[in-house]
C-alpha cells in the first residue's frame, strides 16, 4: 500500500504545489466570489432565493471539481506516455490497479482542497439561510464519488488513447453532457427523455439530491438512492480505469 500512497503524494504535490493547481484554485475562487457578490446588492431575498444560490454554488463546485479531475485524469497515462515517463512508472513494483489507486489519490487530494476552499463561501452565503450544514455534507458525500468517477473515466480513456488531448476532449464532452442539468430548466428535465437521462446520470443525481436537501429541506438520509447511483458510477469507472491500465503496453 506504500506505493500508491507515494504516487498519490507525488501527484497531489505536483498539482497543488505547482502553478497549474493554484491557477485552477484561483479560477474556482473567482467564480464563487462572483456568486457571493451578486447577493450583496440584493436586500429582498427570500429564504429560497438564498437556498437557490447555495444550490447553484454546490453544483458549480461539483462541476469544477469534476472538470479538474478530468484534466488531471486525462494526463494520467497519456501524458506520462507523451513525456516518456510511462515506462518507468510501469516498471515500479506497483501493480496496475495500484497505479490507478495512486493516481486517483492525487485527484482526491485536489478535490479535498477545492471542497475546503468552497466552505468559507458556503458559510458566507448560506449561514443565515436554510439547511447549510446538510447542504455542505451532501456535497461532500455525493460530490466526492461523482468527481472521482469522472477522474477515473479520464484515466480509463487516457489509457486507451495515444494523446492526452484526445482523452481530455472526449471526457470534457461527456462531462458537459452530464452537467447539462445545471443549465436545463426543470420543465425540460420532466420530459420522458429528461427523466431517463436523470436516472442514469450521476451528475443529475447529485444535483437532484442537492435540490432536495437545500431547497426542499428533505433529510440527508432520504437521499440514499442518489448515493447508490454515485457509488455505482464510481465502481463502473474504477472497473473502466483498471481495465484500461491493464491494456497499456510497456
Amino acid at each position, binding site marked *: 500500500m506504500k506505493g500508491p500512497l507515494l504516487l498519490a503524494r507525488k501527484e497531489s504535490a505536483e498539482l497543488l504545489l505547482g*502553478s497549474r493547481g*493554484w491557477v485552477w484554485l*484561483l479560477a474556482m*475562487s473567482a467564480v464563487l466570489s462572483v456568486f457571493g457578490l451578486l447577493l*450583496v446588492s440584493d436586500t429582498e431575498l427570500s*429564504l429560497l432565493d438564498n437556498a437557490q444560490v447555495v444550490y447553484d454554488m454546490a453544483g458549480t463546485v461539483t462541476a469544477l471539481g469534476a472538470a479538474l479531475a478530468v484534466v488531471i485524469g486525462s494526463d494520467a497515462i497519456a501524458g506520462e506516455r507523451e513525456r516518456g515517463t510511462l515506462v518507468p512508472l510501469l516498471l515500479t513494483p506497483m501493480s496496475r490497479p495500484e497505479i490507478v489507486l495512486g493516481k486517483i489519490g492525487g485527484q482526491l487530494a485536489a478535490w479535498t482542497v477545492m471542497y475546503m476552499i468552497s466552505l468559507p463561501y458556503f458559510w458566507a452565503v448560506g*449561514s*443565515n*439561510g436554510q439547511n447549510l450544514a446538510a447542504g455542505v455534507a451532501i456535497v461532500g458525500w455525493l460530490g466526492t464519488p461523482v468527481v472521482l468517477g469522472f477522474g477515473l473515466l479520464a484515466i480509463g480513456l487516457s489509457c486507451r488513447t495515444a494523446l492526452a488531448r484526445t482523452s481530455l476532449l472526449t471526457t470534457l464532452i461527456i462531462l458537459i453532457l452530464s452537467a447539462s442539468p445545471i443549465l436545463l430548466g426543470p420543465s425540460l428535465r420532466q420530459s420522458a427523455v429528461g427523466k431517463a437521462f436523470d436516472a442514469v446520470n450521476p451528475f443529475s443525481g447529485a444535483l437532484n439530491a442537492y435540490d432536495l436537501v437545500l431547497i426542499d429541506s428533505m433529510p440527508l438520509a432520504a437521499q440514499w438512492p442518489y448515493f447508490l447511483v454515485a457509488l455505482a458510477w464510481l465502481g463502473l469507472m474504477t472497473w473502466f480505469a483498471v481495465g484500461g491500465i491493464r491494456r497499456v503496453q510497456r
Partner: protein
Amino acid sequence: MIMRNLSIVAMLLTAVLLAAPGYAQNLTIDLAPARSNPSAPKMGDHLAFESVITNTSSTPVDGLIAWISLLRVDPGREQPMDLEDWSAQKAVAETRVEPGQSIKTLWPVRLIQSGDYRVVISALGRNVEGVTTSRFVEFAVLPKRVVESSRILPVALGMPLAIGTLLIWRLRRLRRRSA
C-alpha cells in the same frame, strides 16, 4: 293583495330555479390560525391554519375539494403567491360530505418571504354551484436577514486575493530558483 301573493310566488319560483337541479348550496368554511402560531412570525417560521368545512345543506356534497390560497397584500406588491415552496399541503379532497358533516383540516405553511399576507380556503363540490370561500386570515411575516454583506465581502474579495498572492509569490520563487 293578489299581486303581492303572485310576486312572492314568482320570487320563490325564481329561487328554486336558480338553485338548479340537485345542487347543494350551503357549504360553510370557518378558518382560524392555530393556537401554536408564534405571535410575531418571521421568515423561516411555520404557521398553521385550521379550517372546518361544513355541509349545512340537506343533500350530500360529492367530490369536495378544498384548497388554500395565499395573497400578498403589501401596498404596491399585491400578488397571489405560488405555494410551491410555502406549503406541502395545498389541497384536500373528500369523496362525499354528508349533510351536517364537518371536515377539519390543518394547513401548515412555512414562511418563505417577509410581508403582509392573507390566507383563504376555498371549496368546491361536484354538485355545488360556485365556490365557497372562508373569511380571510391576515398575518405579517417579519424579515430575517438571509444575506450578511459583512460576511460575504471579506470572503468574496479575500479568498481570490489570498490565492492570487500565494500564486504570485510561488511564481516569483520559482523564477528566482531557475535564475
